[in-house]
């Protein structure tokens, strides 16, 4: 015990100056070594250069492989995306042009039919719902073409209908 503490007790006339109280508490054997190890582990205290990554589980490895950025795949995906953006409006316009038959003017339809009348039959005209001038049609058809058509299809006409036509 320090002299100054003993002197102080003597000044107080305390018997503690003569009878020292022993610090009788003792820790179990190896307590301090174990405490240090426990705390270092509990607090995860490591030097940065000693830090080791924890081994990954199978599921984590698979997920990591799937999610790992692959430069080539990423570049390819980006290129496809860019092409998609570039071509999409043109493709869309083509489809619109093909499907916008009703946008054509009536004169344009007539002109097209008259130029290509040989390639049409009546069924196709009815499907197209194109109104066509009967005289124009008759003028375009030769007599022998009419005869041939009638001869080939006469059985399908009844007499009354034949009279109505001619």
């Amino acid at each position: 015990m320090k002299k100054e503490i003993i002197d102080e007790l003597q000044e107080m006339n305390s018997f503690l100056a003569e009878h020292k109280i022993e610090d009788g508490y003792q820790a179990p054997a190896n307590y301090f070594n174990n405490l240090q190890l426990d705390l270092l582990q509990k607090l995860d205290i490591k030097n940065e250069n000693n830090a080791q990554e924890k081994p990954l589980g199978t599921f984590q490895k698979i997920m990591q492989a799937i999610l790992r950025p692959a430069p080539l795949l990423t570049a390819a995906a980006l290129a496809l995306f860019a092409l998609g953006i570039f071509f999409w409006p043109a493709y869309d316009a083509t489809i619109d042009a093909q499907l916008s038959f009703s946008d054509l003017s009536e004169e344009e339809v007539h002109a097209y039919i008259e130029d290509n009348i040989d390639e049409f039959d009546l069924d196709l005209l009815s499907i197209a719902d194109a109104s066509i001038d009967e005289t124009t049609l008759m003028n375009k058809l030769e007599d022998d073409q009419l005869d041939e058509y009638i001869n080939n299809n006469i059985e399908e006409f009844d007499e009354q209908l034949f009279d109505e036509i001619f």
Partner: protein
Amino acid sequence: MKEDIDDKILSLISNKTSVEQGFRLLMDTYQERLYHHIRRMVIEHEDADDVLQNVMIKVFKSIHKFEQNAALYTWLYRIATNETISFLRKKNRKKTSSIHNEDLNLDNTLKAEIQFDGDEAQRILRQALNELPEKQKLVFNMRYFDEMPYKQIAEVLNTSVGSLKASYHHAVKKIESYIKQQNFI
């Protein structure tokens, strides 16, 4: 000398590549003293172990905020003292309904925990010490067992040196009084 070790501890802990060595050095230097400081107050080893672990966790988590206005040793003692007082108050709240039994238990605990080597005088002295109020016991322990200067105790307990001297004096007189009651002197 102590300041040199403290500087080394702080320097090692502040560097990420040597934090482990820093913490090991801190524990090697102070864990036993802190353990005994706590143990003298809580008596049982298991309680001292719990408190000391909490102290070390708090120290590690807040050491980066430590401002070197006081010595590291003083700062550690302050944390340990606050943690011990907090533990004792929580424990006392739980046991207020069985004070009488608690006194008996403490007496038995003292017999079991302290290694007296058959010295009855030491057991009575220890009992006398445990009869002291919380603050007087703290002051007595730090002055008598840890031999700390009053100035340092004042920093730990955030009080004046004059008040500490008075507390120490009262503590010594109360211990003597208890011993006389036991017909020991």
